[in-house]
Structure formats: C-alpha cells, structure tokens
C-alpha cells in the first residue's frame, strides 16, 4: 500500500530529524531545511514503493526494487529456510504484513529477502506456498514468469490459487499461560532499555533550558537530587531504577510474547506466533533444525525458569525478542524441558545425566575466577596508595573477590557433556547457563583447542561446529582422552586415520 513505505521511511529517519527540529530556533532557514528534508524522504519512500516488484517462479523467489539504484535479489526455492511474517500496528491498521524470507548459509551472515507492504492474506498464502511447496502445476499463476504489478494492485485471488484450507493437523507444543508473566522481571530485558532512558533523560535534563530557567517539576526533581545526601539519593535512585526496570521487563514481555504459541505442522515445520502490537509468525523447517538450546540467565535460573532457543540455519541468532530463534519464552523449567524433548524426540538429551569434567577442570575454574579478582584488588589498592584514588573501588574489588569462589564452583557444577543416540549434549556457564543438544549429523567439523595452561593440566576444549545458531558449540575443559572419545563416537571414521601410529 502507498502509505507504508513513506511512513516507515520517516520513522527510520526520526532520530536524525529530531535534532533538526531543535536547531529550528536559529532562524527560518532551519525550518526550510526540515520541510525539504521530510519531503525528500517521503518522495524516496514513494519511489521505492513504485519500483518494488516480486515474483515466485517454479524455482526461485525474485525481488526487484529501485529507480536509480536498481537492486535485484533472487533466491532458489529450496534454499528457503524460514519464513517470518510480521505486522506492526501500522501494518495491521492498513491490513498489511511484512514477509522476511530467510535463506543463506549461516545465520551470522544471513541473506534476507524482505517483502514489505503485502496484503495480509497474500502474505500468509505466500508463506504456505513457499514452505510446503505444493506442486507447481496446482497454481499456474504462481509459476508465471511475468513480473508482478506494483504490490498494491494485486489481490489475493489473482496471484495465488486459493489453497483449500489446510487439512493437516497442527500439533500444539506450547502455549503461553498468563501466570508465567512472573518470570518477566528475571530476564533483565528491561535493564538496557532503562539504562538508555535514564542516560538519555539525564542528558536532556542537564542540557535543556527547562532546568535552568523555568519552574517545573523537572527542575524541582533535579535540585532535590543535587542537594540531597549521597546515600539517601543513591538508595532512592537505585530503588526507583529497579522499579522502572521491572515494569519495563513486564511490559516488554507482554508486548513480545502475547499469545505465544509454538506448534508443529505435519508439513515439517515449527510455527511460532506471538506479539501484541507487532505480531510475528515465524516458520522453521524441521529438517533445517540442528539442535536446541535451553538457556537460563542467572536470575531466571534462580526463579526456576528457562528459555528455549532453536539452533537452525537461516535464522537471526540475536536477542530473544528480536531474533526468530526463540521457541519458548521464559517459562517454568519443566515446561521448557517437555517442549524441548518433544521437538528433538529424545528426552534423555534434555534430562539425562551428564559426564562431569573432573577435578582438574574444577581447579581451572577456581584459578580463572580468583586470579583476575586478586589482580583487580591489587591494582586498586596500588592506585589508592600511590595516586590517592577513592576508597570505594577497593570495596567493589573486595566484593568481586568474595563472590569469586561461589561463582567458580557454580561454573564447575554446570560443566558436563554426554553423547546420546542422536545428539551431542553440552552444558556450561553460570551467569548464563546453557544446555545445548546438537544433532550429530549436523556437526560439520571438530576442533580441539588448548591453551598453554590447559595443556599442562591435560585438558582441552572440544568445539563442534555446525551450520546454524552460534556456529560453534564448546565442551570446555574436558580431559583429552574423553574429548577424543566423544569426537570419534559423534562422527565415526573421521579421526581414525590420524591416530598415533598411522
């Protein structure tokens, strides 16, 4: 539709336009620039809409855009890994959606095809078509080689033959329950937003005219904090910040995970639908799935919850609310384990016992925690003695030192690995505990890395690389013989020809 592109262009440029409005005061000349700029932006958006066309042929999806700078993107149909449909509030008001087609070899350098401003019905049918790849003969219009008219003019009936309502059953794997919102404050997702707001707000307070000249609530608040006693002010600010972070986390949770639903389609895909204002529907082909990861940030683990992430090619492996690889939002651990088991079909990979890494690994965890803490303490004390630094950094360094042994022990307890029938399982981490189950057939190569100190302790870090997710998954601090045993069992006949004595 006409409106989507220009409006979204203005939205994208808003951070740049705001300062323009501020320097408006310097004279009429400034105002002229602002209006000219906005008009140019709208024209740019229009030209992009006018020239964007796409088509689906028997073998490819192609996108053509641009007037002066022509862009042409094409993707073979069998390289399509994931289809993501999202609709912001603006889209929904206009009855539109945005389709993002994920392909590409690795998810750190993905190849996206974005079709913005499709009619919602067309978008969903395009998704069904691409994913399930019905035979071309059924939908002759879809196989035509003619370029589409500009996106607005087409209707659903012209472009695709209406498929019969899918009779394939969908098996619901997970549905978010309202009570699980109690895990929202433990995700710390509000922290960064809160810090950004506080920082930005403080800048405005300090630099704008409000605090200097006009009597207002902001000025009174500013004066209060500047004049108040340090500890009271600090406590009040800390308490206020915590409250704000919790509220933001809860709000973010609701916005991102409203009516979260994970289901398995018998066509071989996992479908995730979620979102309150911006709705998203992501489809992940199961045969592109290389494994899953049960992630527990520290606070979430203490609260008894967890998240589930997919290790898949063609997905943005980003933060959980942005990336498409989130399968289960923060929920009770038992629930996440159940869903994970039913996705990979092997419950023992999720719940089964793990092989511990031994006392050498434990010693390493402790030295790696204690030595930096001691060095930090020594450095801070030295600074105080020589250069008369304040005392409070010493307090912080001592706090780190006090926490270090507990952290090291927790990190050691998390270490473990096992090899189940179809998966390589590895668990590690304390501040962010992850249990990853990687499909054995999905492991591309093995690496065995050892630092100088690891070699002296007889330990190595086994690295399994795969085409999805983070691309490499580690089993840290295992004994060399055990690492080799796991590697040989996971990929048979790979290491044998390099054995000692050959």
């Amino acid at each position: 539709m006409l409106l989507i592109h220009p409006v979204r262009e203005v939205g994208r440029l808003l951070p740049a336009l705001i300062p323009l409005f501020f320097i408006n005061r310097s004279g009429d000349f400034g105002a002229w620039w602002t209006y000219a700029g906005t008009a140019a932006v709208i024209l740019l958006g229009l030209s992009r809409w006018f020239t964007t066309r796409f088509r689906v042929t028997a073998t490819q999806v192609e996108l053509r855009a641009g007037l002066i700078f022509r862009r042409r993107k094409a993707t073979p149909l069998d390289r399509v890994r994931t289809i993501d449909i999202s609709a912001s509030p603006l889209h929904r008001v206009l009855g539109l959606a945005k389709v993002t087609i994920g392909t590409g070899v690795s998810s750190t350098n993905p190849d996206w095809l974005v079709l913005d401003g499709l009619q919602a019905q067309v978008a969903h049918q395009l998704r069904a078509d691409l994913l399930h790849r019905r035979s071309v003969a059924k939908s002759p219009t879809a196989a035509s080689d003619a370029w589409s008219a500009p996106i607005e003019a087409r209707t659903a009936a012209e472009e695709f033959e209406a498929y019969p309502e899918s009779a394939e059953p969908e098996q619901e794997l997970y549905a978010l329950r309202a009570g699980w919102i109690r895990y929202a404050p433990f995700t710390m997702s509000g922290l960064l937003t809160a810090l950004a707001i506080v920082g930005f707000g403080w800048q405005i307070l300090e630099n704008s005219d409000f605090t200097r000249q006009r009597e207002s609530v902001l000025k009174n608040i500013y004066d209060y904090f500047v004049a108040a006693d340090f500890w009271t002010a600090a406590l009040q600010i800390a308490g206020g910040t915590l409250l704000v972070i919790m509220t933001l986390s809860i709000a973010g949770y609701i916005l991102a995970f409203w009516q979260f639903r994970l289901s398995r389609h018998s066509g071989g895909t996992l479908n995730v639908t979620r979102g309150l204002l911006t709705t998203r529907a992501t489809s992940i082909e199961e045969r592109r799935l290389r494994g899953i990861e049960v992630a527990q940030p520290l606070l979430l683990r203490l609260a008894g919850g967890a998240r589930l992430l997919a290790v898949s090619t063609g997905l943005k492996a980003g933060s959980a609310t942005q990336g498409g690889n989130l399968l289960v939002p923060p929920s009770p651990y038992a629930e996440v384990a159940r869903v994970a088991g039913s996705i990979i079909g092997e419950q023992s990979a999720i719940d089964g016992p793990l092989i511990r890494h031994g006392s050498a690994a434990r010693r390493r965890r402790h030295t790696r925690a204690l030595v930096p803490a001691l060095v930090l303490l020594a450095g801070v004390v030295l600074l105080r003695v020589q250069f008369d630094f304040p005392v409070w950094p010493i307090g912080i360094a001592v706090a780190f030192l006090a926490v270090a042994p507990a952290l090291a022990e927790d990190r050691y307890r998390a270490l473990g690995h096992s090899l189940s029938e179809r998966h390589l399982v590895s668990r590690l981490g304390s501040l962010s505990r992850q249990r990853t189950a990687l499909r054995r057939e999905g492991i591309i190569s093995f690496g065995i890395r050892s630092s100088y100190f690891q070699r002296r302790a007889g330990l190595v870090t086994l690295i399994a690389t795969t085409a999805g997710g983070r691309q490499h998954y580690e089993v840290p601090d295992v004994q060399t013989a055990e690492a080799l045993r796991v590697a040989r069992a996971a990929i048979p006949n790979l290491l044998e020809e390099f054995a000692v004595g050959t």
Partner: protein
Amino acid sequence: MTTEQPASTSFALRAPGHLVHRRAIAYWTVRALIGWLALTAIQVFFLIDHPDTRTVRVILLSVTVALALAHLVVMPRWRYRVHRWEATPTAVYTQSGWFNQERRIAPMPRIQTVDTQRGPLLQLFKLSNVTVTTASAAGALKIQGLDTKTADQLTTDLTRATAATTGDAT
C-alpha cells in the same frame, strides 16, 4: 545427576603430517615487528613530548622493548613447530597456534570452498594462506605460510576432491 567419565581407550591423535614453509618464520617475525614498532613509536613520541614523567616512561619503554624482543624471538619459531597440515581423500586436518593451540578436522564431504590469500606481506615472502571453508561460519580451517607452489597444488587437489562429492555440504 552426573556420571563419572568412562574408562577411555588409549586412542591419541597424532600431529598432521606436513610442516609449513620455513620462510613463514621470517613472515611471522616481520608481521609482529610492525605491530611492536608502532607501539614503540607511540611511546617514544610521548616520551619526547612529556619530559616531566620521563622516568616512568623510560621504564615502560624498556619493558615494551624487552617484551617485543622476547616475543619476536620465541613466537615465530614456536609457531613453526606447531603449525602443521594434512589433506587426505577423506578429511583435512590442521594444527595451528603457539601459546594457545588448536587442531581442526573437517571431513571432505563438508568442505565448501578453498581460498588462497596472498596479501602484500605474504607476496614479499612468496607465501600463501589457504582457507578451507565449510558450511559453518566458525568452521574454516586455515593454513598459514605455505609456499606458492604447495598452496596451488593443495587448492587443486581439494577442489577436485570436493567436486567429486555430492550434496550441499550443510
């Protein structure tokens, strides 16, 4: 719920069969030297510019020079003893590093491309770097410091071997 490590067999991995070229020692030395020279130059500049903190800066400078000398003498020779490679019809096996070492093994059906790099410094020493990529962005195997003839031969052999295998290698 944990179990103890199972009794392991006496399997051990040997090192890969081929060394890289001897000229790689000089190449690594020169490459590190450039970095150290830059650091020393900055320190000398500050030394001349700030005569009041002379003693501290002289001490820092001498420490830097000592570290640089130690690094330049030890690192390239250690690297030369560690860096090895081997390519068989079924797999590519590399070993690299010096202080921290890493061994990588990739099966031939999973290899996607073979790249040869020859930057200006490498060309000066008539060496090449060969990078073998797989479908995983983190799974590339790198062989540094091969002489040009060996690198080209290896690239040809690997390209032929990967063309022979089918599948999309993911």
